[in-house]
């Protein structure tokens, strides 16, 4: 029977002392810090470019949520895959996509990770087992199940982690998918990044039951909840979820409570109207995932103040360099509009394909 995973009641447990976190070498802890700082600096720089009118489209910033993607990606084993929705910059950088290709994509440049064809919401890196970057709320959830289905079909031990937001839980496709993965025993971990707001609608105003992960029970899916500001807690809980999926070949639903400092997207000018400034400031002050990690790493002597500052500076320079790279890169040539539409057309070296594929006069 599905249930909330039993955890020790003492919430004071320090997650950095849990087994999975004790395994972290000093280098790996520094790498985690670099990842969260990198995501923050990249996004701040992209916001600046957006405000200067240099990039358009939507820009859904992940600022405040960095520990979730960074923590979970750090647990990926060689046969694990991830997929997410449109707030995807953090996941992309965490899997190792570089700032240049990500920034250039925002600019719609040819050097972007999708050659300027996808934009902010549609980053992909199949070579890093990152399958997007999907624009429609919950649209990625059955795809995540499919990645895990493929692992099971091929008898490969691994799991897929499919991220979604607190708004996505109310889409039919997600509920259909939860039933399916439980019914078939699919090793997928659904991670609800609950930042409290589905666009401008608070959780209270959008979900009848505020414990989102509890919905797993209705489908026989084990579930748990987690705080998202402490990367060690994220790693601890996600490790349990991912290990369960891999070992038992079953799905798991993990709700991570987190917070975004910015609006739903940069175009969301109301984000200080549907919530108070104090709410934002209080979270920043008490739960900022980067500050918290820095403090913990200084306390355990992984970092010094000087090294933390140096990393911060390094990431700022990296983001500035990426911006320069993006600005200096060319737009894709017009001929690129009709490439990458069909695999068969792109790979028709011998010109053997029959029929018309594109209907332009």
């Amino acid at each position, binding site marked *: 029977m599905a249930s909330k995973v039993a955890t020790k009641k003492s919430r004071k447990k320090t997650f950095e002392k849990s087994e999975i976190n004790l395994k972290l070498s000093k280098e790996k802890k520094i790498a985690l810090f670099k990842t969260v700082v990198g995501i923050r600096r990249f996004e701040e720089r992209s916001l600046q470019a957006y405000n200067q009118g240099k990039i358009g489209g939507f820009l859904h910033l992940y600022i405040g949520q960095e520990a979730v993607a960074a923590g979970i990606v750090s647990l990926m084993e060689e046969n694990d895959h991830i997929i997410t929705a449109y707030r995807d910059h953090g996941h992309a950088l965490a899997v190792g996509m570089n700032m240049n290709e990500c920034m250039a994509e925002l600019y719609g440049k040819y050097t972007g990770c999708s050659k300027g*064809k996808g934009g902010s919401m549609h980053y*992909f890196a*199949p070579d890093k087992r990152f399958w997007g970057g999907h624009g429609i709320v919950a649209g990625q959830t059955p795809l*995540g199940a*499919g990645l895990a*289905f493929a*692992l099971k*079909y091929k008898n490969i031990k691994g799991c897929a982690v499919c991220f979604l937001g607190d708004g996505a839980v109310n889409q039919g496709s997600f509920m259909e998918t939860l039933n*399916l993965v439980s019914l078939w025993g699919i090793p997928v971990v659904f991670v609800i990044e609950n930042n409290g707001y589905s666009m401008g609608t608070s959780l209270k105003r959008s979900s009848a039951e505020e414990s989102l992960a509890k919905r797993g029970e209705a489908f026989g899916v084990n579930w748990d909840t987690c705080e998202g500001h402490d990367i060690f807690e994220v790693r601890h809980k996600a490790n349990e979820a991912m290990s369960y999926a891999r070992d038992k070949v079953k799905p798991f639903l993990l709700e991570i409570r987190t917070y975004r400092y910015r609006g739903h997207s940069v175009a969301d000018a109301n984000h200080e109207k549907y919530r108070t400034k104090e709410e934002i400031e209080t979270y920043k002050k008490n739960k900022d995932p980067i500050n918290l990690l820095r403090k913990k790493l200084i306390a355990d002597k992984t970092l010094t103040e000087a090294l933390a500052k140096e990393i911060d500076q390094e990431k700022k320079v990296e983001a500035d360099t990426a911006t320069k790279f993006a600005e200096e890169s060319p737009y894709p040539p017009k001929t690129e509009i009709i490439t990458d539409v069909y695999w068969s057309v792109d790979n028709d070296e011998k010109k053997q394909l029959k*029929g018309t594929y594109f209907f332009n006069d």
Partner: protein
Amino acid sequence: MPLITYREAIKQALSEEIDRDENVCILGEEVAQYNGAYKVTEGLWEKYGDKRIIDTPISEAAFSGLAIGASMLGIRPVIEMMFMSFSYVAFDQLFNNASFCRYMSGGLMNVPIVVRGPANGGTNVGATHSHTPENLVANHPGLKVVCPSNAYDAKGLMKSAIRDNDPVFVMENTLLYGEKWEVPEEEYTIELGVANTLKEGLDVSIITHGRCAMIALNAAETLAKEHSIDAEVIDLRSIRPLDEESILHSVKKTHHAVLVEENKPFCGVDAQISHLIQFKAFDDLDAPVHRVSAIDAPQIYSKPLEDWQIPNETRIIESVLKCLA
């Protein structure tokens, strides 16, 4: 050459491809233990078991999306829509994800899935179960769509669709499932994008696809017998990619075109073909292009009226006579 049903031809294609490639599997509602709502997959579950022939809950969005996700890792799922009308509840998965993932990733991935099932009216089931969405599919670059009109084509196109590295919709027809045609025992495939001239003629080109091609062929015989009109019948087989050359070649020969399809007329497949003909064969036309489509209203339930609503021999003959008048 053995005479087999359209249904049997599809089943042979599925079975042969399952044998050929361990990554081919079939998912859909009632495809396994129930033997298929229209018995297309009859016996396959018994032969191949749970791994390859998979019953799904009634969750088109979930199993379509799951197939797309699995295809990214090399599985080649064939998903059955009990009716192609049901693809509408999986619209985001099929028309956003299957069609655009390759593009949005700048070509880093591809989605080798097949979406198959009946897409036709004429079965007395009302508007919700009578859609012919080949025009919708063709309107989404990234997707391919074929409409086999007979058992031979159904088998050959299905095998090509399964081997294709892009998402392909195969639009079948419940009214054809029980009809028989000659199908060779030896293996063959039919390339996408190649039309089939069902009957050569000199006076008018009837350009059509799906079951309408068979109706048009009968109409052509009547036109010959009763009106001494020598009609050419072109069966498109594949909508996207489209064999424009065969269409234009025929129209340049007959100077008259009558387009026949079961789609509703507004933005139907034939709207595009009509444009093609006027744009690329304007000077060859001796009369305006004529169209026979489903009468432009939701599909009516009442059987005699529905039979009139979708193209039939009488309406095709009337249209040809008008075009040649």
